[in-house]
């Protein structure tokens, strides 16, 4: 039983970290989509430098979450796989397109038309992937999945195509963009760039707040039980209030370019929102039309949970120090930054112009 909690905790943490780290990563692409052409190349280089070393690791959280689901909570994994086949496939297309385009554009030594193709694929898939991620999350809690549905549209299209799932998708995109902008303020190397990302951070924060409001509106319009549950649960309500109260503080920090506290606050807000949501529906995980899937109800047997829990604990004992050292090395330990930039410039110039 203890292991059920361990595994559940890992599941929530993996999902949160994917939203925070993977999200900031997607956000970098979203920002590129809304950057003037004149500044695109610079923003691209900066992004590459900032997220290059850790971007592979950022996406591993999704793998961890999915493995926990199919090993530990097979009923949840299979239900979502069946009824959300289409948005899951679209998200996968986004993941594969984005990951490969990001690497290909850096490792293609020829600057030619293909670069434009990579960039296009990269920015649009940076938008689509978190959209479908949010869309799926929205569907999971919306009560729109109906296992008794008899027609194709009812079973496979209706669940994820309502106002609520779509708005949650947009909300997720905004969160990603906002996280990235706040993150990149601290990565910028000159004041111009810092101001650029500061302005984007403020604008994206406003968009996020608006999109968040739309989520509530959509939930209200669709008469979802989620609303009452969220607002009647004291802990969830307090978390949401904390997230809101910290907003003005965040604006001040962003305005004055105090990027460390801004980063912490942005991460705090996203964590609070996710926590409020998970907490209000706990121990349910999937809310369907006339039933729910609870974590305990969907869990595998105790021998599997024990093995999975131990594997996760042992695994994190290896992963977390290594990951921490990776982030630390490339964030703080820029003892040789000049060489690094020189190498990078040399590498860029080394490309052949067609």
């Amino acid at each position: 039983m203890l292991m059920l909690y361990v595994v559940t905790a890992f599941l929530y943490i993996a999902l949160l970290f994917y939203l925070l780290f993977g999200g900031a990563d997607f956000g970098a692409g979203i920002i590129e989509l809304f950057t003037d052409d004149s500044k695109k190349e610079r923003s691209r280089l900066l992004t590459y430098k900032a997220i290059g070393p850790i971007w592979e690791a950022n996406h591993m959280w999704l793998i961890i979450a999915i493995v926990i689901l199919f090993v530990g909570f097979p009923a949840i994994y299979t239900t979502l796989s069946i009824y959300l086949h289409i948005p899951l496939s679209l998200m996968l297309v986004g993941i594969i397109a984005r990951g490969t385009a990001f690497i290909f554009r850096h490792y293609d030594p020829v600057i030619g038309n293909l670069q434009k193709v990579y960039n296009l694929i990269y920015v649009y898939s940076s938008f689509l992937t978190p959209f479908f991620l949010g869309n799926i999350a929205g569907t999971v809690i919306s009560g729109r999945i109906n296992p008794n549905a008899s027609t194709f549209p009812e079973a496979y299209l209706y669940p994820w195509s309502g106002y609520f799932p779509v708005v949650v998708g947009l909300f997720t995109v905004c969160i990603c963009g906002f996280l990235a902008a706040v993150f990149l303020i601290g990565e910028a190397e000159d004041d111009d760039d810092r101001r650029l990302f500061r302005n984007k951070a403020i604008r994206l924060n406003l968009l996020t707040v608006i999109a968040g409001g739309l989520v509530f509106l959509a939930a209200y319009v669709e008469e979802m039980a989620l609303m009452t549950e969220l607002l009647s649960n004291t802990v969830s309500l307090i978390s949401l209030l904390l997230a809101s109260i910290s907003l003005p503080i965040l604006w001040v920090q962003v305005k004055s370019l105090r990027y460390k506290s801004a980063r912490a606050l942005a991460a705090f807000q996203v964590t609070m929102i996710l926590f409020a949501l998970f907490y209000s529906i706990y121990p349910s995980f999937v809310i369907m039309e006339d039933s729910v899937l609870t974590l305990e109800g969907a869990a595998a047997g105790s021998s599997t949970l024990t093995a999975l829990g131990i594997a996760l604990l042992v695994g994190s004992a290896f992963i977390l120090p290594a990951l921490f050292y990776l982030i630390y090395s490339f964030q703080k330990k820029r003892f040789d930054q000049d060489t690094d930039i020189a190498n990078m410039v040399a590498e860029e110039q080394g490309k052949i112009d067609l």
Partner: protein
Amino acid sequence: MDDFIAARSQMALSLGFHIIFACIGMIMPFFMAISHYLYLKKKNDHYRKLTVAWSKGVAIFFVTGAVSGTMLSFELGLLWPEFMLHAGPIFGMPFSLEGTAFFLEAIAIGFFLYGWGKFHPWFHWFTGVMVGVTGLASGILVVAANGWMNAPTGFDYVDGKFLNVDPMAAMFNDAWFTQALHMTLAAFVATGFAVAGIHAILLMRGKNNPLHRSALKIALSLGAVAAILQPLSGDISAKDVAQRQPAKIAAMEAHFHTESFAPLILGGIPDEDNKIVNYAIKIPGGLSFLAHGDFNAEVIGLDRIPEDEHPPVLITHLAFQIMVACGMILMMTGILWLFGQWRKKAFVDSRWFLTLLAFLTPLGFIAVEAGWVVTEVGRQPWIIYGIMKTRDGMTPMPGIVYSFWLYTFIYLSLSGIVTLLLIRQIRDLDKKETPLPTYPR
């Protein structure tokens, strides 16, 4: 195409694509680490250049392998939810460990690719080695999970329910070791010969520089040794499969009739309706010896297996023949090359030998794909051998045909782009003195 065939084809396509990138992604880091080691020891600049060049290849293959692996972890559920509902908790142990290995690999590759000049050279070298070690561990763990589908253990199957699940027993199933050994060696052979072949082509084009010479030597040494060991591993596998999955070995050998002193059938086209093999060479007693180590042993034929549990014979047999033929050619080339190196024969640098290597470039991967077909198609109609039929594991969602075409399009375009990128990277290597990352002096 009906949905069932579409689902199976999509899975086959996804795995067939992933397997190539996974193999290269887990073996090339070792080549890279050897070259890096030689650079750190001998300070010859061409080793540094080679290390950087190979590390770019590793980055491209790693990311393609990683995203296609991510897709697979979803596709298992998208296509086979009923299978995953029951199998997930049982064979999930290797996957949960693989998650860790994969994560560590992603961290290690971050350190390695961006670590030039930022860390102590030997720490930097160590992170490169870790990319290979964790990649290899991932590969072995995933193969162990596949082994469970061939040799399901770690549970009691009572009235259609999976009870008393023991994830550790499931991970260490009877097939995990033989399969993992065979796959790991295959990855070394395929990647070694492919890399050697590419550098042989470059040497033949008159780019007679020490970089390509060293590259060929590093890749082929590992590839040749693995190619020589592979038949031994194959023999262990064959005996193991003969014991556990008689239907699979019967399909591999197109062995229709149970008999003692069973012949080994080389080549030939099986005729499943008339239960004969046309145009084949038969070695009397060969199959009995291969399967049971005794020329007179009885080998169970397809006639002892219910008709509805027959794997497709034609595909399995042909794939097995292709795999063995490719493996033999690579083994003999490997022996020849090692002999030439040992006795310092001139032919290892000759044009005909380089031409031979060039032609052998794709052969190892053809063998890998063929071997994968043998093990997967040879298991049909089962998804969990003897327990659950593949058809019963499938998603209820109709229209999988469209999904199949979508994935086909994605994989074809990715293959095209990766090939193009590699060609460009290789051209770039010789075109100019690229400024390279280095360690501060």
